C-alpha cells in the first residue's frame, strides 16, 4: 500500500491518458466503499483515479430524458427540486442508503459500479428501466441497466471503461412505484429489498405493464421477469397476487450470510412483492 498513487485528473481526456500509464489502476468515486475495501485489503490497487474533480460527471438534467451524472452524490439526488417529483421511487430508495455522512459523499455511479447485490440505487433504476452510458477513450455505448450487473463486484464495464451517466425516460401517466427494504436497523445494508412499478389502465385493476426488482436475493440486483409477465396486460387480483408471491420466491437464489438466512430472504421477497403491489393499488 505504501506505493499507492492517487491521481486527481481534471478532465476525461486526462483520465484515459492516466489509465494507459498506470497499470493496475482503479477508479474511485465517493470512496465510501472503496476506502473500506482498501483498508481491509479486499482491493489492492497500485493507483487510484479520483473522478471527483472532473466537471460534467455530476449533475442532473430533467427532461423527456433525464440524465443523472454518475458522480452525483446521493445527497444531491435527495435535495434536487424536481427529481423526486418525476421519480419518487428513486428518492424513496436512496433516502434509505446509509446515513447523512455517507449520502453526502457516496455517488449514484459508485453505488452501481460497486455491484453489490444490495445496492439501494439499483432497484428503483431497474424498474424505471434506466440505461447506463459507458465511456472509454475509443468511444461510448449505452446498455440497459438490467445488463450492467454480472455478479458480486462485477459489471459489464470493459477495462478502461467508465460509467458516466444514467438515462431515465419520463414515466408514462398512471405509472406508480414503490420501494421496500428490510434491514435490521434503520441504517443498514438490506436483508432483502424490492422495487415494484405498475402502469395501470385508468383506475381499474387492469395492469398494462409491471416492472419488479429485488436486491440481496441473488448474485446481482435483478429483475423478476417471470413475475412481471404474470401481470402484463392482466387483471391484478388476490389470486394473481398469491401466484406472484410464490413465483417471486422461486425466482431468486439467496444465500445465508452474516445478515440473514437464505430461507428467510426467499420468504420475505415474496411477501414484499405482494405487499408492494397491495400498497400501490390500495388492496
Amino acid at each position, binding site marked *: *500500500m*505504501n*506505493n*499507492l*498513487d*492517487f491521481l*486527481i485528473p481534471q478532465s476525461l481526456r486526462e483520465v484515459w491518458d492516466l489509465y494507459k500509464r498506470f497499470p493496475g489502476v482503479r477508479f*474511485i468515486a465517493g*470512496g*465510501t466503499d472503496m*476506502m*473500506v475495501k*482498501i*483498508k481491509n485489503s479486499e482491493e489492492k490497487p497500485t493507483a*487510484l483515479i*479520483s473522478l*471527483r474533480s472532473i466537471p460534467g460527471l455530476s449533475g442532473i438534467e430533467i427532461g423527456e430524458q433525464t440524465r443523472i451524472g454518475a458522480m452525483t452524490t446521493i*445527497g444531491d439526488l435527495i435535495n434536487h427540486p424536481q427529481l423526486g417529483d418525476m421519480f419518487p421511487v428513486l428518492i424513496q430508495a436512496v433516502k434509505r442508503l*446509509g*446515513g*447523512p*455522512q*455517507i449520502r*453526502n*459523499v457516496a455517488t449514484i455511479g459508485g453505488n452501481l459500479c460497486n455491484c453489490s447485490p444490495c445496492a439501494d440505487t439499483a432497484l428503483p433504476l431497474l424498474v424505471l428501466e434506466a440505461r447506463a452510458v459507458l465511456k472509454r477513450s475509443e468511444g461510448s455505448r449505452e446498455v440497459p441497466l438490467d445488463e450492467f450487473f454480472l455478479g458480486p463486484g462485477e459489471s459489464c464495464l470493459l477495462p478502461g471503461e467508465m460509467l458516466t451517466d444514467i438515462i431515465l425516460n419520463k414515466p408514462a401517466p398512471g405509472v406508480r412505484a414503490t420501494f421496500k427494504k428490510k434491514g435490521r436497523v*434503520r*441504517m443498514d445494508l438490506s436483508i432483502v429489498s424490492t422495487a415494484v412499478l405498475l402502469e395501470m389502465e385508468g383506475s381499474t385493476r387492469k395492469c398494462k405493464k409491471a416492472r419488479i426488482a429485488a436486491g440481496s436475493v441473488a448474485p446481482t440486483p435483478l429483475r423478476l421477469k417471470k413475475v412481471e409477465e404474470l401481470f402484463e396486460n392482466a387483471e391484478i387480483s388476490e389470486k394473481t397476487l398469491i401466484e406472484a408471491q410464490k413465483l417471486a420466491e422461486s425466482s431468486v437464489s439467496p444465500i445465508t450470510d452474516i445478515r440473514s438466512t437464505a430461507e428467510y430472504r426467499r420468504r420475505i421477497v415474496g411477501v414484499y412483492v405482494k405487499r408492494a403491489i397491495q400498497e400501490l393499488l390500495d388492496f
Partner: protein
Amino acid sequence: MRKEIVFNLNGSPVFATVEAQKRLIDVLRGPLGEKGTKEGCGEGECGACTVIVDGLAVNSCLYPALEIDGKNVTTIEGLLGAGNQLSVIQQAFVDHGGIQCGFCTPGMVMSVKALLDANPQPTEAEIRDALVGNLCRCTGYVQIIESVKAAAQKLREDK
C-alpha cells in the same frame, strides 16, 4: 507517493504532507495533532469520526486525505469559543446527559451542527434522521435527542 496539501481547518489555512493511502482522519490526528476527532469503526458505520467538509457532515475515516486539498474542514476543536468556552451544542450535551463515556460525542456534535446549520428548527424525526449515522453505546439516545432539542432552542433564542 506523497503530496503537499493545503486546506482550511477551523478557519485557518494548514499544510500537510500526505501519503496517498491516508484518510482525512489520519491527517487530523497525525501531523496536525487534532485528537478531538475519534476513530471508532473505521468503516463509516459509527460516525465517531464525523467532521464537516464544505458545509456537509462526512465520515473522515472514508475521505481520501489528498482530496481535502483546497476545502474547508470544521472539526470539534473549531466549535470552541474564546477561552475554550463550549459551544451551545456542546454545553447542551453536558447539561442534558447527552454525553457519558464521550467517545461518540465529537462526531455526534458535528452531525448536530450540520443539522442545525441547515435546519434550525428540526422535528424529533428530523433529529433522529440526522443522527442515524452516529452510534452511541451509553445513552440510549434519549438524552442525546433532548440535548439537540435544547441546543436548537437556545440557538434560536440567541439569534
